[in-house]
């Protein structure tokens, strides 16, 4: 369990350093696979967890990275050029975020069973948020969004063994549709602006 938690933290760290789109998507793929492994470990032989793990693998390890990589192929020359935080500053902020997450969980929910997982999940949510706010590339922001979602999923898992299965199915479905919509938009951005750097989106004001 602790190994998986550490691996998750590592994945978040690497995401903050990545500036090539394809590597970010690959890290996301590994991260989602670890989430699926946590599912299996936490819910020993419960059907609910098994279904959740399978869905995580199909959707977040399979379909979503596949779709993202296909778009990335079209964006040959795109990379994160001028992130608001450079790789070194990002690492520093990521480290601070993780400490913050641990401190927060330690103070508010010390009694929870899987508090280690919980602290890691909160770190994932915060780092996902950081990715969305400090990266300009559309794909990077999508990766951030899914990292956030992964973190939230683990928070649910470690506090309450997950939301009821039927609601989780709904969430999985939403994530799937969200990524398809975002992929369509990214593709259109490339077509209209010849770039997927979202910092050029600043015409609408006032």
């Amino acid at each position, binding site marked *: 369990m602790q190994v998986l938690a550490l691996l998750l933290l590592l994945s978040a760290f690497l995401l903050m350093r990545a500036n090539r789109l394809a590597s970010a998507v690959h890290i996301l793929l590994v991260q989602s696979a670890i989430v699926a492994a946590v599912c299996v470990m936490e819910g020993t032989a419960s059907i609910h967890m098994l279904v959740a793990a399978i869905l995580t693998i199909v959707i977040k390890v399979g379909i979503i990275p596949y779709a993202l990589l296909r778009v990335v192929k079209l964006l040959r020359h795109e990379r994160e050029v001028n992130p608001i935080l450079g790789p070194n500053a990002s690492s520093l902020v990521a480290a601070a975020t993780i400490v913050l997450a641990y401190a927060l969980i330690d103070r*508010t929910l010390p009694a929870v069973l899987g508090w280690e997982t919980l602290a890691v999940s909160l770190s994932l*949510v915060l780092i996902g*948020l950081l990715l*969305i706010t400090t990266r300009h590339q*559309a794909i990077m*922001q999508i990766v951030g*969004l899914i990292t*956030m*979602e992964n973190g*939230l999923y683990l*928070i*649910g898992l470690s*506090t*309450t063994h997950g*939301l*009821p299965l039927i*609601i989780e199915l*709904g*969430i999985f*479905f*939403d994530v799937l*549709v*969200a990524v398809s*919509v*975002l992929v*369509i*938009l990214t593709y*259109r*951005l490339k077509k*209209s*602006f010849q770039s997927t750097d*979202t910092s050029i*989106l*600043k*015409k*609408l004001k*006032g």
Partner: protein
Amino acid sequence: MRELIYLALFLPVAAGIVTLCVRKSWLVKAINLTASVCTSTLLFTLIVQVKEAGTFMYGWLYIDALSSILLLVVGILSLTATFFSVSYMDRELSEGRITFKALKRYYALLQMFIFTMIVVLVVENLGFMWVGVEATTLASTLLVAFYFNRSALEAAWKYVMVCNVGILFALLGTILLYYTQVAAGSPEVDALSWTALKAMSGKLDPMLVKLAFIFILIGYGTKAGMAPMHTWLPDAHSQAPSPVSGLLSGALLSCALYVLLRNLVVLEGAMGTGFIHAALLLFGLFSVAIAIPFILIQHDMKRLLAYSSVEHMGIVTIGVGIGTHLALYGAVLHILNHAVAKSALFYLSGIISQQYDSKHLKRIRGMFTALPMVGTLFMVTVLAIVGMPPLNIFLSKFIIISAAFANGQPILGFGLLLLLAGVFAGMMFYATRMVFGAVPSNFHPKALGVSALVACFLSVMWIIITGLYLPPGLEQLLDQAATIAMGRG
């Protein structure tokens, strides 16, 4: 009853799918108009049944007076939006701005959007409501991006990113709420069930519930366009096709507020009303205040209307924040009134922008001379939206403000009146310039679509009639809805 709900959910989906398969333009229109009329009739039937027989509950399905009011909003607006779309999209098609393929995509997405909003309103479980609200964002994103030009793409990207992050916060809040529910010893069958949570709200851990409240308020507040999370709203509303802008502003914002109201009932039961009401008043006042400068200095007609939506969501939030029965009655009535009036304004702005070939406020002049009928309808609706008596919004604004005074918050009441005066000045300044004045020399009127005018007429009739006379049945529903929103229903 159950069958009716299933049918109301099934119809838009079926219509959407069939639309994608047909090859004739008239058939697309016929299918969507029929589906829309049937769906709305079904929704109205549901409302009447709830009024006669009381709250309906079956498994995951749940409709009470509060959801009935919102179903009324979605019922009216999906009807008027489809009627309006027929003429609006015909012109877009004939002027070559869109292709027939895009037209089919438009109607299919529109039906999906209507479907997701109905889902939000007929489920009982807070988890499902979250899934529904997220689905509304996804269905509407591609409608915002519909023209796929640069501005539309920018608006859609901001919309989907901001609202997705916001809604993920709401999910965090919902998970926390579920954790407190499990910790309080609730069985798993009741997970996130609204009625179960409401019944046991006294047993939930108030500290954690407070944390959940913050996330839920930020999350659904983002979707409801509350400042300072409203940044996506003017972009999305101004770039979407006009019928969609009307639905976004009138129905979608209202649905997000509805889910917030449902959550608040549980949260207030657990942590008391003090902190919640203070936070709501703060967000509400801020939303009204922040809209004023953007309404006073504006260049785009649809952005003007969008900022007015931020203001009106602020007013509803203030009503909820005052929290007395009278204030909540006003807030729920205001949701209904604003939905009809604002959607009508967006429809009219669609006609105007097609007639003048511009959304720019400077280019739109002399509507009374150039387009007397549209100009009159526009003026009446603007007068309604700024709260002139005897039109409907005056009534709900008046109730909310008098509730503030009655609840011993005169500073809030005066403050709100002052802010509303600022909004009034801005809206009236631009409206009078648009309606009066000389017609631009290069203006050539085009034929007005019949079904668009029907949609606008219906809305304006509603605005005038409900300003003067609220049917007793509706009044009774509103009264019950306010009681439910207080947590006593």
